[in-house]
């Protein structure tokens, strides 16, 4: 009896070794970069960088981008993109603020802002899933529409009268929790960062261990195949854009609470930083690839660059140049990894 498989077929199969898969993990390299920047800055500025205060500031500053990057990662894994998140941030913040301003309690304002994000996401998702319009164009249109709605809804004012619910609303975005620390002292963490951590944990579990998470990767890998196996592709696409809208709304509401005001200019160009964070963390804009940890560490890197440049006394105007370099470097790294993978 002849075996159906030749020896050479078997020996040619090579499972990616544990070490190899670690090396091929882009998020790991970004983590190394983050660590190196931290060490370099800490050595150069021992008194100001490696302090609890600075840790509090950096983590708070990248939390908003990080929160939106959680939703964006899901969108990008399915092979889509959402350019409207910056505008949705502003729209949700303005709607929440207007509700508070007109005397509603904080939870009404928060709920209103979240619903706004979900509705915009549902509109994006429906146009993309049902009418098969390209995500880039749909969400580019929505970038404009949501910004305009935010301006109209705010009557082009900055809203800072939050009424009776204002205290809680401001605490949500601007508050902190304090963890016990080794020297009997406490480690303060901003509420925004805590929200980011909780969302990142939930999203990681969902992406890795649920069928919904697996379907995102399947849709991004081969949408036609996903459809043939009976996966509700259109419904999942709508859900993913709603998730992106929701994360943008959370970031907008928390930012308004932190700043103590809601401005219709909030979140401008944030979509670019969010996409940059996910791509630097290893997400592939062609779909099928991306991770929550990658988006998290990518967002951290972007803001760490800014912080370190300031600490080193570099003119802050150079900041975007470094962000751009890291984006291109990330794609280059991806290409090199693709080559070694054959």
């Amino acid at each position: 009896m002849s075996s159906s498989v030749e020896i050479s077929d078997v020996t040619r199969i090579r499972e990616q070794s544990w070490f190899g898969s670690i090396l091929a993990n882009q998020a790991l390299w970004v983590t190394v970069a983050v660590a190196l920047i931290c060490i370099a800055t800490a050595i150069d500025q021992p008194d100001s960088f490696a302090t609890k205060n600075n840790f509090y500031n950096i983590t708070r500053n990248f939390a908003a981008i990080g929160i939106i990057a959680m939703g964006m990662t899901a969108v990008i894994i399915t092979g889509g993109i959402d350019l409207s998140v910056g505008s949705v941030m502003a729209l949700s913040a303005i709607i929440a603020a207007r509700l508070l301003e007109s005397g509603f309690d904080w939870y009404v304002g928060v709920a209103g802002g979240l619903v706004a994000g979900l509705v915009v996401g549902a509109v994006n998702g429906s146009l993309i899933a049902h009418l098969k319009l390209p995500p880039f164009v749909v969400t580019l249109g929505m970038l404009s529409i949501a910004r305009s709605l935010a301006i109209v809804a705010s009557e082009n004012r900055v809203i800072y009268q939050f009424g009776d619910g204002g205290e809680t609303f401001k605490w949500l975005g601007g508050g902190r929790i304090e963890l016990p620390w080794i020297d009997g002292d406490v480690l303060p963490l901003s509420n925004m960062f805590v929200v980011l951590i909780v969302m990142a944990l939930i999203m990681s579990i969902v992406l890795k261990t649920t069928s919904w998470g697996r379907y995102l990767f399947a849709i991004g890998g081969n949408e036609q195949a996903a459809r043939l196996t009976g996966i509700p592709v259109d419904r999942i696409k709508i859900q993913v854009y709603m998730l992106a809208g929701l994360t943008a709304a959370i970031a907008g509401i928390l930012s308004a609470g932190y700043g103590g005001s809601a401005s219709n200019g909030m979140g401008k160009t944030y979509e670019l930083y969010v996409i940059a964070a996910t791509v630097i963390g290893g997400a592939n804009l062609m779909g099928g690839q991306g991770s929550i940890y990658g988006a998290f560490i990518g967002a951290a890197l972007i803001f760490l660059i800014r912080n370190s440049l300031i600490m080193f006394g570099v003119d802050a105007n150079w900041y975007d140049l470094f962000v751009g370099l890291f984006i291109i470097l990330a794609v280059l790294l991806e290409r090199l990894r693709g080559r070694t993978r054959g």
Partner: protein
Amino acid sequence: MAVLELTGIAKHFGAIEALRGVDLSLEDGEVLGLMGDNGAGKSTLVKIIAGNFPPSAGQIRIDGEAMHFHKPVDAREAGIEVVYQDLALCDNLSAAANIFLGREFKRSFGFLRFLDFGRMYQRAGELFEELQSETRPRDLVRQMSGGQRQAVAIARTRLSEPRIVLMDEPTAAISVRQVAQVLDLIRRLRDQGIAIILISHRMPDVFAVCDHVAVLRRGSLVADKSVADTSPEEVTGLITGAIASA
């Protein structure tokens, strides 16, 4: 009784008549070779059986029961599995993930349901063992050879104890040695009593594994006969029209 019975199947796309009056039947454990030139209607017929679209006229019966498929999942529930020409695999997922795509094993924690990786890897391993394929459940499809990818697509059809497996050009895009592997896989499915429709351009493959050969020409069935009663020359004549029917 025939496991699959097609009577008077026709399909129009506007003014174009892709299929007319096709009658075919298939027994358990029978391998039918479906041949025909490009545009003869092979793919249309397969898509009708697979539930991608309904026929304009005619009936599909499984075990004598009339079926109406609205989408591929309906056909799958009736026991029809398809290995598509492009295999419909997700390169970025593992072999096991592809096999279970859309019907994952899950375990519940309260109202939450999580993927049951252990059971899926184990079942995928068993399926590959049944098919005597060395494919490993955890390997990414991206890293696999053409033959292994076929094994994944075929293993997927074994998940649900299917009655009928449709294979669309499974040997078209792989190397000669891998063709032998795939033909072996087809024989193994047949040995388990599964009826198979093999769509192929490759005469040697059809004559190697099929019991029956059916020939479509311009939307009509021009022959349906036992492989023992025909020859590659006759089938070629039927495909091109040099022989009108047989």
